[in-house]
């Protein structure tokens, strides 16, 4: 596919880095989600964990809680990946180390996402509710 935009057009829209306000907007949209999900999680998990393993398991297995937990982990991990990316880009000027930490940030977040989401799904599906 040929590019229809002129070089000036791409610079106006995205700049030479080929990325514009996307990072900024995604950070804020995930923040709006977290402003709702985090208070829910704190209040809910206090009740869920009070009576030990069985009650925590029952809580996670309830469909609404499992859905909200999946949304919470997704939004939080996405938000923190964007946030730490900015911190790394701000403070680490040395090229090799900068790229290494950015890649490590991505890997760490995806590892946590796999672990957390599969745990929620295992409890939810395993409960048969």
């Amino acid at each position, binding site marked *: 596919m040929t590019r229809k935009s002129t070089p000036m057009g791409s610079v106006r829209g995205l700049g030479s880095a080929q990325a514009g306000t996307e990072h900024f907007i995604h950070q*804020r949209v995930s*923040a709006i989600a977290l*402003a709702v999900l985090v208070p829910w999680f704190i209040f809910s998990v206090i009740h869920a964990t009070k009576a030990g393993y069985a009650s925590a*398991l029952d809580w*996670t297995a309830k469909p609404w809680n499992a859905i909200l937990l999946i949304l919470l982990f997704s939004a*939080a991990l996405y938000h923190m990946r964007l946030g730490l990316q900015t911190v790394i880009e701000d403070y680490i000027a040395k090229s090799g180390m900068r790229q290494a930490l950015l890649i490590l940030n991505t890997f760490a977040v995806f590892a*946590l996402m796999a672990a957390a989401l599969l745990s929620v799904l295992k*409890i939810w599906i395993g409960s048969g509710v």
Partner: protein
Amino acid sequence: MAGSGWTDPRPLSPHLQVWRFHMTMLASIIHRATGVAMYFGAFLITAWIVALASGPEAYAIADVIINHFLAQIVLFAWAVAVMFHLANGIRYLFWDGPKIGFDPNIASLISIVNFGFSVVAAGAIYGYAVFAV
């Protein structure tokens, strides 16, 4: 810049060499610090849900760790960090969206309120968890 399409002046980067210390600066620094701290906190939350999914033996180990007093200090610090990042983050949304609260004195006042809120809210959460539930 003549000919550029911006309709409002672009924000200048805050920098330690050109800005005198003020509360909004401190709030910004603490916002970033709490964000990085919670990044590592996410490993602990994930460890907890993995332990729950792994079965009663793994959860029992997690339970012993959580109830240790050092872990309770970490948990309280986590609550302070979350509450501060939440309150201060909502202020950022008001800045970025409807552009409310840019006046330097109001911004400083909100910064102080956010500091106070984070400690009080974390205390309320901790008290609720220990005494009310």
